[in-house]
């Protein structure tokens, strides 16, 4: 069953066709690797998917509902999507605990008005923060964390949101080895609990290890898709990625 269907998507910034008629399907309960050199348009596709950018042309179906996002930002929550950003967008002048607690908040103004600090889900937050080993820093300001810790905090926030679709934009960047291990374990857990994961990453080892399926993008177009082991050994893919002369030697 396809969880997300993208049909010849197009997006233009000024004169550059950052994404031109890009189509793809992402199947339910799989980990999809989304790879391609920098500036190939990966992040833009994800931004279009999560409503950060408006769609110039083309359609996106999320669990068979056509995404109509004339407004700039669709409400990801209502489409059961959560994501992280290449450069983590967390609430700097709020504590680590509050950064995660917010996603478990009541959404309606009136009900949030009567939900005081001691909500039931603080145990859920503790569980998530312990998993990513940030529980010790829970009262620290998010802005004071290191780059790696900020990445991990955003990752923890996606875990806490418990949405059907999770999109991670370079989750492994800036992490130490053992932290990478924890994150990859958690991603596998996500898949085990029925989630669909989209992973944008340059770290090929992680892609090969985690991804069931890979989409390769270059210059705004989808140039290859399939099993990671098969795809990533093809010369034409390596050419774009590591550059012709390097991998010839």
């Amino acid at each position: 069953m396809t969880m997300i269907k993208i049909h010849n998507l197009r997006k233009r910034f000024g004169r550059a066709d950052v994404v031109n008629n890009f189509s793809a399907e992402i199947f339910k309960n799989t980990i999809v690797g989304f790879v391609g050199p920098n500036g190939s348009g990966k992040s833009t596709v994800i931004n279009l998917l999560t409503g950060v950018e408006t769609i110039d042309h083309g359609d996106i179906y999320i669990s068979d509902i056509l995404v109509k996002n004339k407004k700039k930002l669709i409400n990801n929550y209502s489409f059961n999507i959560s994501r992280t950003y290449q450069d983590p967008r967390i609430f700097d002048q709020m504590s680590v605990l509050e950064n995660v607690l917010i996603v478990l908040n009541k959404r309606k103004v009136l009900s949030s008005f009567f939900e005081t600090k001691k909500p039931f889900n603080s145990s859920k937050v503790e569980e998530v923060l312990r998993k990513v080993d940030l529980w010790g820093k829970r009262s620290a300001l998010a802005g004071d964390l290191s780059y790696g810790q900020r990445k991990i905090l955003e990752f923890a926030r996606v875990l806490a949101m418990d949405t059907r679709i999770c999109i991670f934009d370079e989750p492994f960047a800036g992490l130490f080895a053992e932290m990478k291990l924890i994150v990859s374990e958690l991603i596998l857990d996500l898949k085990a609990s029925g989630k669909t994961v989209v992973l944008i990453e340059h770290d090929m080892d992680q892609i090969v290890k985690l991804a069931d399926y890979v989409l390769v993008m270059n210059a705004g177009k989808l140039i290859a898709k399939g099993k990671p082991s098969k795809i990533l050994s093809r010369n034409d893919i390596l050419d774009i990625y590591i550059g012709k002369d390097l991998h010839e030697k």
Partner: protein
Amino acid sequence: MEYLIHLAILLSIYAILGISLNLLLGYTGLISLTHASFFGMGAYVTALLLVHTKTSFLLSVLLGVILVMPISTFLGMISDQFNKNDYMLVSLGLNVIIFGLFNNLSNLTNGALGISGIPRPVLFNIDFSSNSNYLLLALVLLLLIYLFSHYIVRTSFGRVLKTIREDENVSKSFGFNTRYYKLVIFVITASMAAVSGSLYASYFSYIDPSSFSVTTSMLILSITIIGGLASLPGTLIGTLFFILFPELLRFVGIPSEEVFQLRQLMFGLIIVLLMMHRPQGFMGKYKL
């Protein structure tokens, strides 16, 4: 002793204004210079009701709030569509416009002549004409508003406000209707300002448009920022500083008017120095 009571009443009136603006600016990141207009609306409603009709003080305060709610909802919606810099200019504009209405609609507000003879309230057979009783009334209202604000800040509603301050788009993507949240807090803080307006009118027994001009909005802004953003006790310190300090100048021996000119010079200097070294204010937890 009367003088200290008078100062305490003045402090609680401006503390209420400071706290309400802190909820708006310190917690939600909305820099609004319209606050003196809501302060004025509350004052004028109470003044007109107490002078021309027999309504009780509490009812006039309530009616002031009831009048301010729809107006602040409308103004909130207008000013909400703008980004940070335009928002501030639009809020300033709204203050100038409302000041113009206070001053020019003389058949309603008596214009520059102001409204005099506003009686002191008599509630539950306590006569509030003596300042010490009035101080109790003012402190009770300040306490209520302080606790209410303290409660708001502790709820999830308060937490959502802080996320709006930090990064509204991300907060939106989590499914929070941020426009609605901003509107609700704008109306709440406007109503608080109206309450302090009613207190002001009944205490001073005379009001005129000059006390609700843009300069008053800037005074409230300075109180909030110097006191400390996103810190309610900080606002109390800020009010203490801005209201007590000029009164202290009356005690300094030099009676010449230069001392009073120095007041504005000193305030300007303090604002600049604070922005240099402690932009979050004395006890603030949020840097602008």
